[in-house]
């Protein structure tokens, strides 16, 4: 094994999205919110004197678990299906943590309450700690797991991957737009108070069920800091509520933050938990069941609804719609199918579903087989090279989707897709709420009110458009997802590493038609063609099926 040079390692640290490759960061964050009235107290009164010993104790436990995992050879006994998905998850999650650390100084200058600044400063330190222990976890996987490829390049992958862009949106949400919108409403009120439950409580439980007891240790250590973050968010929210002029902005931001978190977190975590597990005990909760319990029954009813007493209207319609997406419109299944469709553009291996998986899905989501079963059978059939293309270029009754400009998850629930011409470009959105976010919320004027601090959603946001017209082999090479032999791909649509003949290489990809970005093609259409195309697209689905005329 060759050692990596110190200079190279140092170079890698700089890739930690401090200088994003995909857009030009702004130099100043302001807010359109006002804080004229209530000064809220910092309820937790954390001081560094007790903070560092507490965190040191927690870090010791994490190191102890790491040692235990090495001694117990956990990395070779864990379910491969599960650990492969960690290549994606652990490439994403340290970046939101770093973004959250960066979000705290935005609050220092915009929330005029020194009492709260201490809590925010401590949150900033928490977030750096989280990022560090998560990256250390990734390092341990890489050093000890049977197939390190994909763990070793993930900081870079995060920025330009087919799936990673979705995680990028989550990280960007913490530092995009008005400082309060980003650092307070999006990050602490919605992401941390509601969605960390699925991230840091449900994920670890699933990891443990798949033989990985190290990830739960790391993520429980992370989750135990959330109490501070939840109360930071709450104190700022109550301060904002006291100025009635903020209500319009709060209502806008709760709509945006709720919907965007749902789109991004449910897509990613839903897929990891339901398609990354080998544990098909029927008494285990499905993602939909957990979502209903934590997010709907608890967060919505006991945290959001009481805010209405302050005269705030909370987005009941979008909360109901999120549930509708998860339960009736198969949102998580549509996403998992999309991730697997483009397996070749990823940096991990996606295990085909078996009869046992089918049975579990049908039990938890009645009607699943009729929608998705056939496609997963095709995935299995096409998983090893045998004169055919990867599934994305084969006829499996699947229409490749358009990217949503806002959440960067594609427009998978076909009937919900909407289009808009913005700044001279035709954009597609996975749902009206994402169109509203881009076209109405992230604008310098909102409902007649000046909102100069809101900014806009810009940058390279459509993965396919980055590579429009490229040969697939060149795409994969450009992204760097090739193994040490220079031709075997990191990604594979199966878990069999033993037989070289079963491994896909760049040579297989050279024979494929070039990658076409549906979003570029959409902009080349005449107005009439585009209208006809849209009318047809929304008749498609479920499971990506093209409309039947």
């Amino acid at each position: 094994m060759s050692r990596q040079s110190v200079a190279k390692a140092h170079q890698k640290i700089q890739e930690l999205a401090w200088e994003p490759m995909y857009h030009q960061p702004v130099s100043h964050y302001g807010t359109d919110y006002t804080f004229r009235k209530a000064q809220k107290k910092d309820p937790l009164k954390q001081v560094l004197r007790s903070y560092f010993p507490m965190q040191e104790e927690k870090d010791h436990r994490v190191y102890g678990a790491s040692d235990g995992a090495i001694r117990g050879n956990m990395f070779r006994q864990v379910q491969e299906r599960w650990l492969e998905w960690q290549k994606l998850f652990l490439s994403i999650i340290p970046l939101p943590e770093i973004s959250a650390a960066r979000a705290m100084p935005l609050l220092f200058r915009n929330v005029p309450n020194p009492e709260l600044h201490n809590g925010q400063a401590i949150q900033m330190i928490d977030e750096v700690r989280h990022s560090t222990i998560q990256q250390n976890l990734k390092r341990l996987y890489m050093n000890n797991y049977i197939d390190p490829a994909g763990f070793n390049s993930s900081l870079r992958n995060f920025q330009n991957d087919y799936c990673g862009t979705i995680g990028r949106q989550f990280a960007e949400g913490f530092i995009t737009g008005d400082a309060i919108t980003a650092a307070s409403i999006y990050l602490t009120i919605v992401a941390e108070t509601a969605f960390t439950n699925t991230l840091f409580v449900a994920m670890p439980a699933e990891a443990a069920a798949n033989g990985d007891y190290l990830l739960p240790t790391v993520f429980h250590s992370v989750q135990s800091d959330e109490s501070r973050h939840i109360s930071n968010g709450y104190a700022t929210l109550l301060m904002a509520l006291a100025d009635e002029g903020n209500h319009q902005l709060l209502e806008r931001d709760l709509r945006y933050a709720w919907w965007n978190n749902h789109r991004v977190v449910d897509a990613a975590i839903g897929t990891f938990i339901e398609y990354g597990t080998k544990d098909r005990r029927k008494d285990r909760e499905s993602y939909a069941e957990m979502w209903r319990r934590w997010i709907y029954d608890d967060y919505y009813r006991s945290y959001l609804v009481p805010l209405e007493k302050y005269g705030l209207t909370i987005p009941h319609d979008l909360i109901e719609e999120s549930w509708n997406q998860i339960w009736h419109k198969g949102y998580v299944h549509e996403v998992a199918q999309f991730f697997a469709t483009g397996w070749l553009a990823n940096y991990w291996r996606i295990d085909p579903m078996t009869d046992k998986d089918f049975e579990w899905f049908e039990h938890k989501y009645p009607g699943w087989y009729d929608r998705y079963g056939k496609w997963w059978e095709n995935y299995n059939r096409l998983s090893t090279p045998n004169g055919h293309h990867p599934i994305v270029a084969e006829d499996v009754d699947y229409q490749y989707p358009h990217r949503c400009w806002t959440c960067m998850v594609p427009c998978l629930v076909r009937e919900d897709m909407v289009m808009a011409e913005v700044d001279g470009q035709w954009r597609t959105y996975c749902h009206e709420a994402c169109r509203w976010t881009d076209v109405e919320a992230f604008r310098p004027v909102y409902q007649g009110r000046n909102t100069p601090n809101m900014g806009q959603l810009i940058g390279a946001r459509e993965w396919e458009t980055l590579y429009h017209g490229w040969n697939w082999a060149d795409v994969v090479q450009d992204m760097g997802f090739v193994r040490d032999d220079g031709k075997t791909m990191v990604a594979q649509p199966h878990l069999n590493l033993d037989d070289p003949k079963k491994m896909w290489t760049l040579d297989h990809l050279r024979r494929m038609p070039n990658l076409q970005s549906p979003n570029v093609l959409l902009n080349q259409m005449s107005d009439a063609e585009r209208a006809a195309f849209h009318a047809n697209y929304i008749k498609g689905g479920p499971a990506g099926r093209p409309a039947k005329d």
Partner: protein
Amino acid sequence: MGEKHRVRFEPVGIEIEVDEEQTVLRSASEQGLMLMHGCKEGQCAACKSFVLDGDDIELDRYSTFALPDYEKEEGFTLLCRAHVYEDVTIELLNFDEEMIRSGLPIQNAVAEVVAIDHVTHDLRHLVLELIEPRELTFFPGQYVDIKVPGTEITRSFSMAGTSYKKLEFVIKVYPDGIFSSYLDGTLKVGDRLELTGPFGVFTLRDAPDRDLIFVGGGAGLAPILSLLRSMAERGIERKAVFYYGARTAKDLCFVAEIEALRGKLPGFRFVPALSEEPEGWAGEVGLITDVLKTNEVDLSRAHAYLCGPPPMVEAAMPLLAQLGTPEKHIYYDKFTTTGGED
């Protein structure tokens, strides 16, 4: 279900009963208390609290990151995992006093008028029986918004009673007021009204060792009456004085009932006072705040509850502060002072 034990929360002074089989967090939530929490799985530590008194607490499975052993030994606990097997006192570390009582669901309800009585020349005693739903749970001292039929206009009124099935109100009628005109003109027994609630934080903070001072005037009587009636029902023995101000004897109502509360509330004193025409009146005379000033010397160990016209509340606040009542223990209902006026 198992045995029940009392759980007292400090420094907010709220007591609830908790079944052994339920976690403290769950039980509090069912009783309308919104305690800070996150995952409810013993992992995020948002509900971490400190046990001041009591030992017999068992925890369901939790993460030792959220509650390390040394913290548990010091007395910290996780409310989302805690079952109590004796009476305990728990100090909340992370709470917002305004929000803690906001846990009761806000409901839209339809109710039928069962009584409209003139209790003075300008105060009406309105009683509504709930039709759909049949009950509306509230904390004594809270209010609901009642819709003026045929309009989108609502007015806020505090409940004067304690029944969840029959809501009682004491409403002042103003000449040309929208709700007043309706109440005195059109509304009759059998009519239906739409209402929404409960709202408000003018609720009794449990603090057995603290005296209570109530100061009320006009329709501000309603929430105080609700608090007093509920204290009588619950057998609360705290020392309490109710300073009830009115202009003339004909402006007083519910006097006999309040007097009679002394039988059920051993520590209770009632001090009605008139500011005008006190002929033939044996009681106190003057503005209610002046009466309070002459009667009390040291209120540093008291909690005060104010409800009435804004000038009364504004005059009483500095006076109570002068008499030593800590500012954070002077409670007043912002809505009743303004929302009652049409």
